[in-house]
């Protein structure tokens, strides 16, 4: 958990340093370069997910539960975040898009920032940081009510940063479902965000 927090602080730090550079030195990164870095990032994220040890075997072992869990998370997140648009000056497409990071704040923030607008990219980044923080706080409590519903809130982060937390609070079977949900959602994030903002 210390590691997770440290990573989060470093990433928020990079964003804050960027804000200061933009604010006081009017520093600007060319748009083409951002696109290129984004392509590289998505490429290596793909490699990283693909290289995960025994990933296909682990997904296959409980495929139906993992699939249904993932679909419910996508539907639940999208339906409810659509409702959130009524409380703020964003369209349904925008709030749904912002929530489509499923906790993966670094990727969703930078993707939406370059595909749509820096404003919504910022909303998405901060919102998904909150999703991860809420997961850290709520999973131990909610797991006492329903383990699969509890790990669902971790979204894409349950395959890596929050996997330890999920396994600490749930049975082995449900930890495997949490891992699988994280893999499928991580695969979905770049695809869904691209499709929403195409």
């Amino acid at each position: 958990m210390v590691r997770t927090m440290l990573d989060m602080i470093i990433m928020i730090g990079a964003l804050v340093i960027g804000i200061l550079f933009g604010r006081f030195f009017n520093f600007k990164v060319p748009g083409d370069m951002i696109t290129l870095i984004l392509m590289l990032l998505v490429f290596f994220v793909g490699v990283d997910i693909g290289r995960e040890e025994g990933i296909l075997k682990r997904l296959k072992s409980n495929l139906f539960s993992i699939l249904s869990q993932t679909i419910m998370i996508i539907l639940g997140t999208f339906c409810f975040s659509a409702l959130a648009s009524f409380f703020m000056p964003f369209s349904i497409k925008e709030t749904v898009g912002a929530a489509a990071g499923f906790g993966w704040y670094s990727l969703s923030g930078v993707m939406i920032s370059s595909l749509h607008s820096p404003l919504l990219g910022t909303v998405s980044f901060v919102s998904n940081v909150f999703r991860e923080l809420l997961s850290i706080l709520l999973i131990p409590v909610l797991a006492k009510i329903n383990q699969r519903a509890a790990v669902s809130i971790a979204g894409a982060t349950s395959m890596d940063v929050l996997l330890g937390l999920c396994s600490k609070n749930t049975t082995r079977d449900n930890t495997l479902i949490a891992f699988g949900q994280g893999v499928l959602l991580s695969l979905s994030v770049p695809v869904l965000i691209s499709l929403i903002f195409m």
Partner: protein
Amino acid sequence: MLVLILLSFGAGLFLGLKKQLGFMKKIKIIPILTLLLLFSMGTEIGANDKLFNDLPKIGIQAFLVAVFAVAGSFTFTYIYTRITGSDGENDA
């Protein structure tokens, strides 16, 4: 751009499943690229007066989106597991 991003992702996934490019973990390429992108996203926020001044409001809106997203995930999976009888205890 959409196509380029999806193609990059697909190509990476394919090579990853083929167990290629193992070196990139060692040189921490994903964290480096992520930090670069977050930095450049920051410069855009900083250079944009309206966006910069709206940051506190954006924080509240983002929190609201997160609460709705979390509530939605929990509600949908809760109902699903209750209907199919596959919640935590039963799965163990």
